[in-house]
């Protein structure tokens, strides 16, 4: 199998709050360091991944974030505008359609439209000849900071859904092209991110099954994020447990310090049982360490990109 970074399009998904944006940014950095021209794509107008690189928003413009790494935040409305422009041809007709209020309401809410144009834009970015834009910028790799697993699957499925709805005609042909690209494992890869906790691991396992059932696609890499170090052995934990009971005068930090150590030991062990649980189900899950930094900045993401380089 080709290395995950040698694909043209990568979707990074997982349960909410597990660090998808961080992992997507780290993957982007890693690929850029290897000399690839990369674009980091954000959906749902959150701009979390690009914030690591710059404070200002990036919007729907392809913006340089770091050497070899660009970013874009996909606005479904703008993506649709771009697509329709290429389809309609005439500027006057385009405006007649696009500026119609009912049409706007309709497209803002019609089932699957936001999803299909978002994934359509992602697909467009991954093409060597960019069909929707006259841009010459070509990317070797598009990394998508995708929505959480449930919605993430919805996005991947959007082209199939649209294909089935449209049956024939230009939309059907477009949807077909996107669907074929996404389901081609040489072109497109899926990366799941989980924390070593019960719910995120369960969601990863379920996502893998649904992806296979519904899309006939496999997950290319499983990332377990935020793994605590194993600082203390079982023997040390026992020593602390007995010392904690007897030690510490009022106001001393000894007791809270040992309590923190025992809590850490307990969490590290619980986490490892979740790692084992995932590894029983899937091959080759890689772990990333928990970084004791309250907010992750560029330095931390760089560190994680090196960790990924060693493990992927």
């Amino acid at each position, binding site marked *: 199998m080709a290395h995950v970074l040698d694909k043209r399009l990568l979707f990074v998904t997982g349960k909410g709050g597990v660090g998808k944006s961080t992992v997507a940014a780290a993957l982007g950095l890693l690929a850029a360091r290897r000399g690839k021209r990369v674009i980091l794509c954000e959906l749902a107008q959150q701009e979390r991944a690009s914030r690591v690189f710059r404070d200002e928003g990036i919007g729907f413009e392809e913006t340089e974030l770091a050497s070899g790494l660009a970013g874009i935040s996909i606005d479904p409305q703008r993506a649709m505008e771009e697509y329709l422009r290429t389809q309609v041809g005439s500027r006057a007709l385009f405006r007649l359609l696009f500026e119609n209020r009912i049409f706007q*309401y309709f497209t803002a809410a019609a089932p699957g439209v936001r999803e299909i144009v978002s994934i359509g834009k992602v697909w467009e970015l991954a093409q060597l000849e960019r069909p929707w834009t006259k841009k010459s910028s070509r990317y070797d790799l598009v990394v998508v900071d995708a929505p959480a697993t449930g*919605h993430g699957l919805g996005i991947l499925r959007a082209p199939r859904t649209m294909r089935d709805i449209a049956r024939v005609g230009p939309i059907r042909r477009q949807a077909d092209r996107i669907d074929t690209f996404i389901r081609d494992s040489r072109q497109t890869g899926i990366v799941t991110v989980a924390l070593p906790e019960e719910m995120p691991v369960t969601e990863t396992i379920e996502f893998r099954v649904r992806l296979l059932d519904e899309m006939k696609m496999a997950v290319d890499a499983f990332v377990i994020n935020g793994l605590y170090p194993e600082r*203390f052995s079982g023997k040390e934990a026992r020593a602390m447990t007995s010392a904690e009971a007897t030690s510490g005068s009022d106001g001393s930090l000894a007791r809270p310090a*040992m309590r*923190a150590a025992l809590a850490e030991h307990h969490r590290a062990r619980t986490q490892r049982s979740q790692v084992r649980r995932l590894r029983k189900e899937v091959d080759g899950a890689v772990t990333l360490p928990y970084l004791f930094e309250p907010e992750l900045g560029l330095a931390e993401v760089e560190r994680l990109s090196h960790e990924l380089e060693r493990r992927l």
Partner: protein
Amino acid sequence: MSPATSNVADVLAGKSICVCAGAGGVGKTTVAAAIAAGMAARGKRVVVVTIDPARRLATSLGIPDLGNEERLVEPQRLEAAGLAPNGELWAMMLDPKRTFDELVERRAPDAATRDAVLSNRIYQELSNAVAGSQEYMAMEKLYELHEEGGYDLLVLDTPPSRNALDFLDAPERLARFIDSRSLQFFLAPGRRGLRILGRGTGVLFGVLKRVTGIDLLADLSDFFQSFGDMAEGFTERANRVNQLLTSRAATFLLVTSPQSESMEEAELFRSRLLDDGMPFGGAVVNRVHDLGLAADGDAKAGGDAGEHADLERELAGALGDSLAAKVVRNFEDYRALATHDRASVERLRDRLGRGESLILVPYLDEDVHDLAGLAAVGEHLFPA
């Protein structure tokens, strides 16, 4: 200074609806369930509507499957977890697709219309779509349960999304779509639509046909036709849900983590609620690192080197040098997190204004996925 925290029971006094909103992964479902259990312990008849609970939590609540019926959580289970209910705790897991179907069944003027809508492909996509209809149907279920009466308090967990605001936006988008039935004039030209809308319409239809293909247009036209007058009912219903959520009976609680991006969102969410005339009840900050130190112990940002050297000497007696050093190193790490989280919470308090309720739930040693876990969270939501 240790900030005073509020009690959820005070926030919910006189309320019959509590909506728990927040970004994905912050622990909304857990907090919603713990609030419901806590209020049941305080004598209320409560129902919690969950969207996507962890299996073990669902199992321990006794709702292993998707089902649109509320089920009573057995009092013995609650007692065993230290949550003895003086009232009743009911729980259900929302099935958005079924809720939508039931709504159509109720609203359809006759069986033929009902079947036409339920079998329409556009409708099926609409009702199956994860994004949008979940939010709409959660609101719908809430309204339905409220109308039926029978509960003192409804607690609603909201669908998982990155953005808490989605919950407020999605239903409106859907209502607009259903209400964009005037589009059928474009979709089916040649009927009276053309006459009303004038000549531009024919051109517009031509463009649409070219862009989408004729099949899709025909399906859309069918959808809007069979939906017909029901659309009005939907819009009216959406208005009533809106009235309910802006009434005094309702309150919104925002669940957030102590990370800055969630905090910023909390603020945005609050001003959006206020703009929409919806009541903001307060914020629950979940998973706050808290070492339980005396107030002045935490105030020294992250502790200082001298203090930690003293601590290491003190611990070395009982634990030996190398373990003592590791314990101190670990303590420093956690203290940095605790200091950050405390500052974050203070910032949120300043931004929200001192008058708003803020409830802190510490980062617990165990993942929460059963009734015992809910009881542990409840101790912080309902401090004695």
